[in-house]
């Protein structure tokens, strides 16, 4: 039952992406509006999927890389919908929804796999650590995707290309606000996630070798990167293009940490 809803959600994400891309080609915001509703529907289906998983095995909804990616997609899409409800930047979905589809497709590769939770990852704190970390990273991803669009729009405006594309994309101010909100909310949540994770690691794995786990190191690096970004943003007052570019770099680092390192790490690995 839960995989049915997962597949339905994947199809709906795909439909939303197609809708957004068509609106991008046709440069019509009306179509993006429709796509936004489809995306909302996809998130709803995805939520049902998680409810099934939840009733089946409690809060452990993201115990392997594939599930984590699906959870990630859900968070990013949900956060985007919440943001767009406030700012009416429908077009940002054109970059959020393909991102979600990509994650969902990767995630579907592990759909039929048997569920093995490694001993090292069994404990009450683990799901909390996973949920908070992915939530925080999802918000960061949203901030970065807004940054991608910021760079495109900035270029359009500076080169005086006030054609259909510039008209279609959201305003710089709105995109910068989304970046701001993503960093501001993502940071404390990820911080909490990492603290919970390290508390868990200390008790479960004990001793001194846990900080050298590659995934932990990478996660800490990502955290530092975003801490730096948020600091520059709030204290130094970096805004706009500079933060947008750095956010994109941060996203690349984060994705590397998220996926790439999982294949290296031994104890911290998902599957």
């Amino acid at each position, binding site marked *: 039952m839960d995989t049915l809803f997962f597949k339905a959600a994947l199809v709906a994400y795909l439909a939303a992406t197609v809708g957004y891309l068509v609106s991008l080609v046709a440069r019509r915001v009306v179509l993006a509006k429709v796509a936004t509703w489809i995306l909302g529907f996809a998130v709803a289906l995805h939520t049902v999927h998680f409810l099934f998983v939840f009733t089946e095995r409690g809060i452990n909804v993201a115990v392997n890389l594939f599930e984590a990616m699906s959870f990630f997609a859900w968070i990013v899409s949900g956060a985007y919908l919440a943001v767009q409800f406030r*700012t009416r930047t429908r077009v940002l979905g054109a970059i959020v929804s393909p991102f979600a589809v990509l994650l969902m497709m990767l995630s579907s590769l592990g759909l039929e796999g048997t569920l093995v939770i490694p001993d090292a990852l069994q404990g009450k704190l683990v799901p909390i650590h996973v949920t908070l970390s992915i939530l925080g990273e999802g918000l960061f991803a949203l901030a970065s995707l807004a940054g991608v669009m910021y760079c495109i*729009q900035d270029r359009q*405006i*500076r080169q*005086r290309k*006030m*054609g*259909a594309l*510039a*008209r279609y994309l*959201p*305003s*710089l*101010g*709105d995109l*910068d*606000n989304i970046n701001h909100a993503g960093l501001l909310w993502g940071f404390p949540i990820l911080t909490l996630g990492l603290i919970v994770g390290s508390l868990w690691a200390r008790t479960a794995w004990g001793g001194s070798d846990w900080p050298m786990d590659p995934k932990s190191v990478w996660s800490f690096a990502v955290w530092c990167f975003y801490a730096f970004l948020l600091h520059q943003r709030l204290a130094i*007052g*970096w*805004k*706009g*293009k*500079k933060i947008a570019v750095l956010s994109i770099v941060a996203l690349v680092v984060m994705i590397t940490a998220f996926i790439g390192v999982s294949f290296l790490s031994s104890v911290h690995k998902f599957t």
Partner: protein
Amino acid sequence: MNIILVGMNHKTAPLEIRERLSFACGDDVRPLEEILRAPAVREALYLSTCNRVEVLARAESMEEAIARVKEFILRHGNLDTSELEKCLYVYCGSDAVRHLFRVASSLDSMVMGEPQILGQMKEAYRDCLEQKSSGIILNKLIHHAFRAAKRVRTETAIASNAVSVSFAAVEMAKKVLGSLEGKSVLLVGAGEMSELAARHLLSNGVGRLIVVNRTYSRAVQVAEEFQGIPAGFDMLEEKLREADIVISSTGAAGHIITPAMIHAALRRRKNRLLFLIDIAVPRDVDPEVGRIDNVYLFNIDDLQGVVDENLRNRLKEAEKAEGIVGEEVLKFAEWYNTLEVVPTIVSLREKVESIMRAEMEKSGSWLKTLGEEDRKNVEIMTTQIINKILHDPVTGLKEESQSNGAMPYVAAIRKLFRLGSEGD
């Protein structure tokens, strides 16, 4: 279709002639009354704006009606015939409908896509209703024109972008800053165009307006007009920190806003986005300012470029709009054409139904012997028979009305079924 449209617009007639006509049709003349006095004219609409004069009419005889309307324009415009012929256009039938729809959709306007014309047309129609100069056909036609205009507005982007420099400034400000709600504007110097832009910005939600001018009294004067805050010229640097939008239009010979000033202001405002418009010639703002991060500088040529781009876009959208107008013209023609067969269809049906009712009454005595349910079944059956018999001739009539003109068939049906002449 017995519909005619006679008129002149900014393309066919010089302003002087349009002026004369609209003056002449001022308060003391009631154009509709006069046009309707012609026996050939049954319904009429008179539209007069600074760019056009249009007379739309349903006529018994088109030639006569055209002649009468021309004569009316000739008289009031104080024109001679040759002059008039050069300025006037005359459309008949579906061409007249198309022209009306194009006017309503603003495809025929001086600045394509500007919406004023629709309001003016609604006003003209109100006059029409007040003086009862429109009947079934013109009412339907004018409502259809409004509908076509609405479709064009919602289905194409013809009216969606700014086509004046001051509106382009607002549009660009929105593209950079997002919502203008609660943002503040700084006017440096004053002039017609910057004041116009300020007015547009204020009506788009800008919260605060600061006016800086070399002559302080002038700053006070302008600030009063917009309920803004006046400031002396020495305050410029300080005010640059507060503003989100700066409109500069002084008569200064050199640059009055330099990169150093902007850098200093940005530090104080924590790099909040700053949008500058330089309308002055020679320029007030050093072009280098435009290269600074988080600062967006537009000069008069840039804004003109936006306007040109938008106009080009409107032309592209106009093609789509013409398609919509074409569709609506066809729809109207369809409705109009069925008009000539509708009364016949109605009386044919009435006749057949009255026969049925009479026969049912005649058979009332034996129908009573049937049960309630059976009686109903008999009724249903007879109704079905009538419907099936009428179906083919009715659709046939409608089809003929769309292609060849159904008058011979109408006459035949009226004669064969003894429906009497129309209007009985």
